[in-house]
């Protein structure tokens, strides 16, 4: 009883302290993260998803990704599925927007059909993995509000710990707590809290590599679902920057012939 009231008191009294200053600092950190990743132009990369359930059963997906940076708006991206083999050739085109809902199209190779799909399914699982659509879509500053919480050691470096609250009411999360590397302004770890504000998942970034002397990309992203025991390991390879992709490589015609 005493403990609960103590908790209530601390929650009540902690809120005034996280006001203006911490919000300003949190936002400033997010803006700096975004700034340091600006100017990459375009990238291509290969991704392997290793899904594991709590009994240790595994399944694998191979996906290739192409991303185009769009000035003044969210990125355009195309994902092409190579495995499982029954979905080989399926491709997904997405235009993310800083404000408003994203535009998404799906190409179904068996019917040669391009389908415009609703982008409202933020919290749904991507390909049966522990990553939700909102976890893998382009992370725009405007999609969250921020609070700086504290500094904390993360590995050999020190991290800013910030809370980010999704602006979109359709998000599957009440909040995320992110550890941002103080030196490089890149995320090292994110805790995701579900709609009941219980810890749902933890995403850990591993084995960062720097490209073009500026852009940090993790070779591995490990997502662990604490409630189901399922995990998904994303392994990135063959990262290429400035490959010459243009807007015309991200339209419905290019979606139809994506390979």
């Amino acid at each position, binding site marked *: 009883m005493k403990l609960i009231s103590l908790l209530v008191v601390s929650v009540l009294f902690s809120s005034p302290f996280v006001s203006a200053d911490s919000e300003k600092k949190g936002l400033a950190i997010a803006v700096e993260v975004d700034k340091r990743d600006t100017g990459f132009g375009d990238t291509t990369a290969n991704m392997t998803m290793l899904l594991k359930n709590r009994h240790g059963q595994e399944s694998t997906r191979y996906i290739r990704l192409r991303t185009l940076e769009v000035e003044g708006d969210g990125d355009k991206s195309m994902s092409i599925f190579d*495995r499982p083999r029954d979905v080989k050739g399926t491709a997904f085109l997405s235009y993310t927007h800083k404000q408003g809902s994203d535009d998404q199209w799906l190409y179904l190779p068996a019917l040669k*059909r391009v389908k*415009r*799909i*609703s982008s409202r399914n933020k919290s749904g699982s991507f390909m049966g993995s522990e990553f939700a659509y909102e976890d893998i879509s382009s992370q725009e500053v405007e999609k969250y509000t921020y609070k700086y919480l504290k500094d904390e050691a993360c590995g050999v470096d020190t991290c800013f710990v910030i809370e980010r609250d999704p602006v979109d009411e359709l998000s*599957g999360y009440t909040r995320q707590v992110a550890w941002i590397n103080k030196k490089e302004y890149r995320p090292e770890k994110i805790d995701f809290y579900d709609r009941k504000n219980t810890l749902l998942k933890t995403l850990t970034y591993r084995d960062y590599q720097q490209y073009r002397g500026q852009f940090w990309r993790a070779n591995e992203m490990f997502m662990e679902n604490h409630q189901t025991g399922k995990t998904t390991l994303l392994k990135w390879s063959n990262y290429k920057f400035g490959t010459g992709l243009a807007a015309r490589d991200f339209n419905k015609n290019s979606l139809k*012939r994506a390979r």
Partner: protein
Amino acid sequence: MWLRVLFILVFINHSTLVSASDGEWSGYIAAEWRTFFESPSDVAQHGDTTSLSAQAEYYREWEGGKKSFRFTPFVRVDGRDSQRSHFDIRELNWTSVHDDWELTAGIGKVFWGVTESQHLVDIINQTDLVESTDGEEKLGQLMLKLSFTRDWGDVDLFLLPGFRERTFPSAVGRLRSIAAVDVGHAEYASTQGKDHIDAAIRWSTSFGDWDVGVSHFSGTSREPRFRPALNGGRSVLIPVYETIDQSSLDLQATKDDWLWKLELISRSGQGDRYTAATAGFEYSLYGVFESPVDLGIIAEYLYDDRKEAASTPFEDDLFLGARFALNDEASSELLAGMIVDLDNSSRVMSVEASRRIGDNWKINLEARFFSNIDDKDSLVSFENDDFMQLELAWYF
């Protein structure tokens, strides 16, 4: 002749290329078992049947995908119906992509449209009806396709030589008209017969939440009308392929959880000019019952202003469907639907479900039930053809 031109094109391309990717094969082999719940309308028709099918795709590209070659043969061997056993080249084409235009030459497949219950606007490829009664399986079509991309949309121009006749079950086959279609004696309204070269043009674009396509097709109708006749003392239907002009509009508005859809066609050349339409919505619910399951509710109205004289059974019908996506590792899905004729209450119900097994196998279930079919409804010939089929496919 056309094939020879294509091979020459492909050959020239091969010999002048510098940076080529390795070619790759992929595809599937599938075993299907189909069981019918009732005895057939005609004693000549078969009962349960098994069949095997396979499709392979060879793909090779050059210059980072600017040039590509694709070959997709398909084959089915059916245990009972010799006309369901068939081979088809779904694709055999060469594509060249440039900054704002691209060219495809050869056999290809093209889909137009937005609705789920029927595909009125989709007209480039002939329906491979023996594959499925839903009309979604298509035969390869020889084509020269030129596409332009502009700020105001995409324009596709088609030249379509080499007309393909629709496939139909044989006299022993199920899911056929009461008098079987005599595929050997097809007739053409055009004096050029099946050598008539068809043409089509399409403009399509997206602005904001809207996706729109306007198309026109001029040529041999993919959908035949039928003339009753006698062949060796048996009543048969002779398919008659007329020359038509079809203008169409397809429209989708993606408004949050709602997809609003419209397909509209106006066709001349088969009797009087007529209009047909499909209009409706798909509403999605994500994570229903606090589970990862997504549920889509689909409702579409199917209209044809020829009413009872329409060549399709769907002239004043309502389609209601529910699509479940389990979002699990096995990508399990289920689509259940029903089309009801609003005039005579004839009903077609269907269930389609699929799930992956391991990394390379997939199981598909499909069932269709025809119930309360009115004697005057053209579906009356399928009245005793309720069926369920299971297919196990291995992908490579």
